[in-house]
């Protein structure tokens, strides 16, 4: 049994009554995995002592838990797959960790081309369920162990957002539980809905501060018959990046356009004991395209090829088999894991796509000024850049903070924002003012009070 405040200790029997004895965990050693997310160690907030882990099986369970917590003013920290990068799900105060992992059912409605998924189902589960129904969930918003609730609560983006958008673009309906215990059903299997203020859009991206998402209606798409991945090496960053808007303008709309540099992508391949298949150029674009037939696909590849060649591409490499394509995506997705042990923080600044090159050049200037290594890569089609602040050359956290601030200011000056996909969580709160006006933050605070009058839900996240 952990060391709990009296207030919390008194709740244990009620919690057991709601979800069953087995699903209330009070021993610290059985909740270790729930105390952290994927945020790099140097900046990740530490979990509080005195926590209870509760695993409900229904929206009614969640409502019962929240009513109880609200009446006793006990903080509740909803967690999903804990794959976030800004400490959003870390339980930083004594209270309840609410894991929805038991709520993991998915039903696919082929008639409406939508899935109804409970919050605890994983991205991997959703991809599989869609596939088995002959349908397709186009984006790849992060780790496949991420849970639907978390993906929606953080409005996750990922690499395949160019053509069909981020998580928000797929969500048609939500079932949510308010901190005060009411269950609300928002939207539905609808493609149009103009009935009143759209609270569903507020819930999407609320990072677990306004409500607990328990179920979602998610739009799917027909399965692409053919999918290919192109890897295009360039001698310079400039050549690679000026290719991107030209491709987007051409009407050939890839699912993803990723920008990587050879040093980091080779590092990621090495980390996985693999070899990056294209060993040329300083900068590379990775593009994923889908289409109805191989002929159509190759025609579109030819169009892209002409644009790339007019921008001095060294070659255009083509991966067609599922194995080759998933290897490329796997290596790309592991740049973060390869760099993580040497990393202080990962940023996800986002600018208008045409300003991405300027932003990267600014990052180079900042790296030179501080004499540090700031590896950067990102979702070039979305103007979303991951800049890593590495331990190498950074003497203390104040220096890391100054570097981060300069990168943020550079992004904002280019019409951008400090976070395009990871969200605010714990880490970005003090920088909100760089992007949002005082009035904007004031309205956010008012909204938070309306939803959560006792500030029990994921307190001190998103807002101070």
């Amino acid at each position, binding site marked *: 049994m952990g060391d709990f405040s009296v207030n919390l200790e008194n709740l244990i029997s009620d919690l057991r009554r709601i979800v069953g004895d087995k699903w209330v965990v009070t021993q610290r050693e059985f909740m270790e995995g729930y105390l952290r997310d994927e945020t790099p160690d140097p900046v990740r907030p530490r979990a509080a002592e005195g926590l209870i882990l509760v695993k409900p099986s229904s929206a009614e369970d969640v409502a019962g838990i929240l009513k109880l917590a609200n009446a006793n003013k006990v903080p509740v920290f909803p967690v999903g797959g804990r794959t976030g990068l800004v400490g959003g799900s870390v339980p930083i105060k004594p209270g309840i960790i609410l894991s929805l992992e038991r709520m993991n059912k998915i039903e696919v409605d082929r008639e409406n081309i939508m899935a109804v998924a409970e919050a605890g189902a994983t991205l991997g589960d959703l991809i599989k369920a869609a596939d088995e129904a002959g349908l397709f969930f186009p984006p790849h918003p992060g780790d496949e162990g991420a849970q639907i609730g978390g993906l929606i609560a953080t409005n996750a983006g990922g690499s395949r957002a160019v053509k069909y958008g981020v998580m928000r673009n797929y969500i048609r309906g939500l079932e949510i539980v308010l901190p005060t215990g009411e269950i609300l059903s928002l939207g539905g299997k609808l493609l149009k809905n103009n009935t009143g203020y759209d609270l569903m859009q507020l819930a999407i991206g609320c990072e677990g501060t306004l409500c607990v998402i328990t179920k979602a209606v998610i739009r799917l798409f027909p399965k692409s018959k053919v999918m290919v991945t192109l890897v295009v090496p360039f001698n310079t960053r400039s050549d690679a990046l000026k290719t991107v808007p030209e491709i987007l303008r051409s009407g050939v709309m890839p699912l993803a356009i990723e920008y990587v540099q050879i040093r980091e992508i080779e590092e990621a391949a090495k980390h996985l004991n693999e070899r990056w298949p294209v060993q040329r150029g300083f900068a590379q674009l990775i593009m994923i395209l889908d289409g109805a037939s191989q002929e159509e696909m190759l025609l579109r590849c030819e169009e892209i*090829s002409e644009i790339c060649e007019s921008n001095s591409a060294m070659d255009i490499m*083509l991966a067609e088999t599922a194995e080759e394509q998933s290897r490329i995506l796997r290596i790309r997705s592991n740049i973060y894991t390869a760099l993580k042990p040497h990393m202080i923080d990962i940023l996800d600044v986002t600018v208008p796509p045409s300003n991405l090159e300027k932003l990267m050049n600014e990052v180079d200037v900042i790296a030179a000024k501080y004499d540090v290594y700031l590896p950067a890569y990102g979702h070039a089609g979305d103007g979303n850049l991951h800049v890593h602040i590495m331990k190498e050359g950074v003497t203390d956290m104040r220096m890391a903070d100054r570097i981060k601030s300069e990168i943020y200011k550079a992004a904002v000056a280019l019409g951008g924002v400090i976070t395009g996909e990871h969200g605010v969580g714990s880490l970005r709160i003090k920088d909100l003012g760089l992007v949002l006006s005082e009035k904007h933050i004031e309205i956010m605070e008012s909204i938070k009070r309306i939803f959560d009058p006792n500030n029990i839900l994921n307190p001190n996240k998103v807002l101070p």
Partner: protein
Amino acid sequence: MNILVLIKQVPEIEKVRFDYEKGRLDRSSAGAIINPFDLNALEAAVQIKEKTGGSVTAISMGPMQAVDALRDALARGADKAILLSDERFAGADTLATAYTLASAIRKLGAFDLIICGEKTIDGDTGQVGPEVAELLGIPHVAYVEEIRQICSDKIVVGARMERNKYIIELRLPGLITVTKDLNNPRLPTLRDKLRAMRAEITVWSYKDLNEEDALQYFGLNGSPTRVIRVYTPAAEKRKSQVLSGTAPEVAQKIVQILRESGVLG
């Protein structure tokens, strides 16, 4: 150096479904690709050609759809591709397949080296390569994971057998089968892919092989293998159990459980 690469078109294993009732792969459920080990064979051949000059010919036996695999081989560096396709080749086991391939190789004439993947991901026997070598009367080494040296009349390779690695010098002409550890197959360029889409693929039928009165060696006729039944073991789910007691007691229980389940003897 004149190198031949034997390739097979197989279902894309990451997508293919298994028909549990019929006990076989539902080949219509997925696209077809070059057997992944054969890509390592092709890559090895192309690397040797880049060093020594010469040509790489890809040969496959299969239905007409297998031209797609051969086009892919052309995009990945083969200079020429030959498909062996005939109703009379159908239903072949490894022996009849090897016989057909060996006949085609004889018809082609002189060669220096034949490279195959160690096995295919759908058949998994690893027999065809060595059988082709035996039928042609040339030396062979299987499971090659390293090519140390090659010149006009010999090749020195490292081959893995169980825990041991053997360094073997092989007289040429000869045949090797290669593992995935040998190399990382390159991606084709888009330009080569488009060129390969328009390339001519030579197709040889039974008649083209100049094997008169040899029908009994081809296809089902030439296949002594009989598949009686294919079955899939039922998938076992993870069973969890929480044990309590002192550490020695729990250790004892674990040993007992492992004994009962046959993990420990």
